[in-house]
C-alpha cells in the first residue's frame, strides 16, 4: 500500500487506541507520562500503566513476527548517542509534560495551547538537530 495511506491508517489506529483508553480507563494516552508513573510510582496505579506498556512491547513482538520491516534498524550506533538521546527524551518529556503522544496526539486533538506549543517546539528542535547532524557535521 502507498506509504501515505499506511501512515494515515496507522494514525487512525493510534487515535482509536487513545479514545479507547479515555472511554474505558478515563486516561490520556501519553506514553511518557504513563511510563514515568511506573519508573517513579507516586500513586497506587501502577497496574494499568504496566499493562499499557506491556501492550506496547507485545505489539512490538507481533510486529516483529508479522510485519518485520515495520521495526526499522536503528540509524545510530555506539553508546554515547543513544544514551544522550534517551536521557534528553526522558528528562525533556517530563519537564515539558508530554511527548509525541501526550502533547502531539492527545493534547493537539483537544486543542490545548500548551500541547500545540510543545509540539511545535519539539518538531522544530528535532528538525534543527537533524539539520546540524546531517548537513553541518555530515554524520548520522
Amino acid at each position, binding site marked *: 500500500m502507498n506509504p501515505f495511506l499506511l501512515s494515515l491508517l496507522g494514525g487512525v489506529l493510534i487515535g482509536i487506541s487513545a479514545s479507547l483508553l479515555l472511554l*474505558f480507563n478515563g486516561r*490520556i494516552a501519553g506514553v511518557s507520562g504513563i511510563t514515568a508513573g511506573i519508573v517513579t510510582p507516586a500513586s497506587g496505579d501502577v497496574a494499568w500503566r504496566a499493562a499499557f506498556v*506491556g501492550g506496547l512491547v507485545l*505489539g512490538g513482538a507481533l510486529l516483529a513476527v508479522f510485519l518485520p520491516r515495520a521495526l526499522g*534498524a536503528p540509524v545510530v550506533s555506539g553508546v554515547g548517542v543513544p544514551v544522550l538521546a534517551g536521557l534528553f527524551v526522558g528528562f525533556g518529556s517530563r519537564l515539558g509534560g508530554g511527548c509525541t503522544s501526550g502533547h502531539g496526539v492527545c493534547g493537539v486533538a483537544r486543542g490545548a495551547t500548551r500541547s500545540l506549543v510543545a509540539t511545535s517546539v519539539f518538531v522544530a*528542535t528535532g528538525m534543527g538537530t537533524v539539520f546540524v547532524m546531517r548537513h553541518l557535521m555530515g554524520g548520522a
Partner: protein
Amino acid sequence: MKAVLMAGLAGLLFAVGLGIGGMTDPARVMGFLDVAGAWDPSLLFLMAGAVGTHAVLRRFVLRRPQPVLAPAFPKLAQTRVDRKLVGGAALFGIGWGLAGYCPGPALVSVAKGAPTVLLFVAAMLAGMSLFRGWESAMLRRKPLGPAAGGPPIGGPRAGEGERQHVGSTS
C-alpha cells in the same frame, strides 16, 4: 482487572498503529525531520490520522458522565505555557532528532532487542528518574513563600498540578 486488560489492549493497538504508520522505523522519522534533505512528509499523515480520529471520538466519549471502568475523566484545564514546557519540549526534540526514537516507538522496538534501542530505553527511564530527583531537589530548595513564584501553598502544589497535567496527559 477489566481496566488493566483494556489498558493492555489499548497499548497493543497503539503499538500496531505506530508500526503500520512508520513511527517505529527511525530512518522514516529522520526522513521526516530532515527538511533540508530528502524530506519524507508521510509521517504528517500519521499525525493527521491520529489527531483527527481522536479529536472526533473524544467528543463522543466525553458525552458520557464517566468512563466505563473508572470514576471520572481527567480534568485538563491548565493551558499555561511556561519555560518548563518550552525547555522540556526543546530537549525532547533534540533527543528525538539524535536517534529517531520517541518514547512509544522506542518501547515498541524493545521487542526486537537491538542493543541501541535497549540503551536508549534504559537512558530514557534514567532521564525520567533524574527529572523526579531534580524536581524534588528544586522543591526542597524553595519550599514555600513568594520566592516560589506563587501563593504560599501554590509553590509545590502548582508544580504537582502541572505534573498532574504532565503525568496524566503525557
